[in-house]
């Protein structure tokens, strides 16, 4: 028998530290597969960020740099300018990128910085115990708003992909999900494109991945996948929001 699926090479042997069913693991694997397929492990550099994935420098078998909360795109910018031959990706949660790091990501996008951003939208601050993220759905429970998100008090869920696409003319920006096999395959394609647009020097790449946090959603993993489909995607439509430069090619 031949192994047809298995751990990608760009992933280390260290098991993931995440809760059972946590989407971070799936997304990590997709990134590693793309790094393998594009054969860029030797020149890829990942930027970690604060969040449950803060120590994912242990997961990727490539050079890694840790950034402080929200600053990934700035660190990536400095590094890419210093080492233009490398392939830089940031890995950021929705707290990291859509809350404290708003300035950094908006400007990296508008500079069309040649970096790749993997943006994990799980609708919650996972690492700090389930507080409301900018992406938390209306009515959704969190430890900061125990009665559920009320737009009157704390506003509307932020659609980062749409917003960033609006300011980043040379870019590939897409929203994907990992709630079933079909979408996982699509998600990988989007991640691949988000890398390619950098590698081919065509622009800024960002894949927003709708993800689950079973622990803070207080749901079984399988129920989480169903919830992504039933509740999350209707608010956060999947698709490509910017692929100007790709079409131009």
């Amino acid at each position, binding site marked *: 028998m031949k192994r047809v699926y298995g751990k990608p090479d760009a992933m280390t042997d260290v098991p993931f530290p995440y809760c059972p069913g946590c989407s971070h693991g799936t997304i990590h694997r997709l990134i590693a597969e793309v790094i393998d397929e594009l054969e860029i492990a030797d020149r890829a*550099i990942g930027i970690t960020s604060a969040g449950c994935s803060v120590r994912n420098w242990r997961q990727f078998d490539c050079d890694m740099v840790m950034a*402080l909360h929200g600053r990934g795109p700035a660190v990536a910018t400095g*590094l890419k300018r210093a080492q233009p031959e490398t392939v830089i990706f940031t890995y950021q949660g929705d707290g990291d990128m859509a809350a404290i790091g708003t300035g950094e990501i908006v400007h990296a996008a508008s500079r069309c910085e040649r970096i790749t951003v993997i943006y994990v939208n799980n609708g919650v601050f996972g690492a700090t115990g389930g507080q409301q993220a900018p992406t938390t759905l209306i009515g959704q429970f969190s430890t900061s708003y125990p009665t559920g998100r009320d737009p009157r008090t704390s506003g509307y869920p932020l659609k980062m992909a749409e917003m960033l696409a609006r300011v980043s003319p040379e870019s590939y920006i897409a929203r994907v999900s990992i709630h079933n096999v079909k979408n996982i395959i699509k998600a990988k394609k989007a991640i691949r494109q988000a890398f390619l647009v950098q590698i081919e020097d065509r622009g800024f790449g960002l894949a927003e991945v709708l993800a689950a946090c079973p622990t803070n959603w207080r749901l079984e993993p399988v129920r989480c996948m169903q919830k992504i489909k039933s509740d999350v995607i209707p608010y956060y439509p999947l698709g490509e929001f910017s692929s100007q430069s790709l079409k131009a090619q």
Partner: protein
Amino acid sequence: MVVEQSTYLAVSEKNLMSGNEAIGEGAIRAGCQFFFGYPITPQNELFEFMAQMLPQTGGTFLQSESELSGINMVYGAAAGGGRCMTSSSGPGFTLMGEGLTTLATAQMPAVVVCVTRAGPGLGRIASAQSDYRLATRGGGHGDYQCLVLGPASAQELYDLTYEAFELADRYRNPVIILSDAILGQMMEPVVTDHLPRMKTPPKEWAVRGKGTNPRKVIKVAPHTDEELIDWNRQLKKKYQLMQDNEQRYEALLTRDAELIVVAFGSTARIVLDSVLRARNEGMAVGMFRPISLFPYPQKALEEIVRQGTRKLLVVEANNGQMVQDVRLAVCGAAEIAHYGFGGGHIFSPYEIYREIRRLGKS
């Protein structure tokens, strides 16, 4: 002000430079290839000098969307092995606290310039020295420390900025150049050719993609509690090493001085006039000018004071931020007075002379 062309870099004679330009010249001479920064008065001449010069020397200039972002770009470029710099003044320097603790933790070399203006808050663009405490002690959380240099002339700004890049690489630590608005605006002749044109030295720890080597990780937090404690122990050792090796100062007419005026940066310039005037009038006055602000030149000051100084007069353009360091150095061995004001007061040589006389008499 836009520097219209690069005459400086070519000529081997004395050039008239503003302090801000001198920093830029020193940086480029030292091989600085990356500048990330955000405009703020009174450092804009440096910012704009780099904007002009770096592209001409093959380097990268990028205006960041904020100081917070700028210093994190510096961190990224430093991780990539580049010699890099940012600069600001009070309000922006405050926003760099996070970046400074980041750089210090990750042990990334970088040069950070603060051209101090009057605070607190938004303050005003008048010159002041009220970011002394922020530079030497503050900014970010945790046990970390930056090297801090406080030049007092355009030449010294040039020389010490150049050296700052060397120190940053030697210690793998951020180095702060603490300048001020007077030094920044003032122009003086500067010789540049005595320092060789440097290139970024090889840095085996920098990330460039692992290639065929084992991968590298640049961290701002280790994996275990024990590692972090050990990490702090290492950092502490390094800071001790800095304290042992990097104390710099200038002492003038201190040998027989009964009263020594302690001042740094632009204030030391003004103090010089006052001290000479008092000397001319027969007073036994000297001047001590710390050049490294961290480490503070404790040893020298202590020894000098031991020779019989009765009084120290600390003069600073702030509410007395350096007094603690002086007190810590001499620890009761001499009386310590402070003269200075926060908020942008510019001393006249006469007022300090008057203060010297008052103290000399009492």
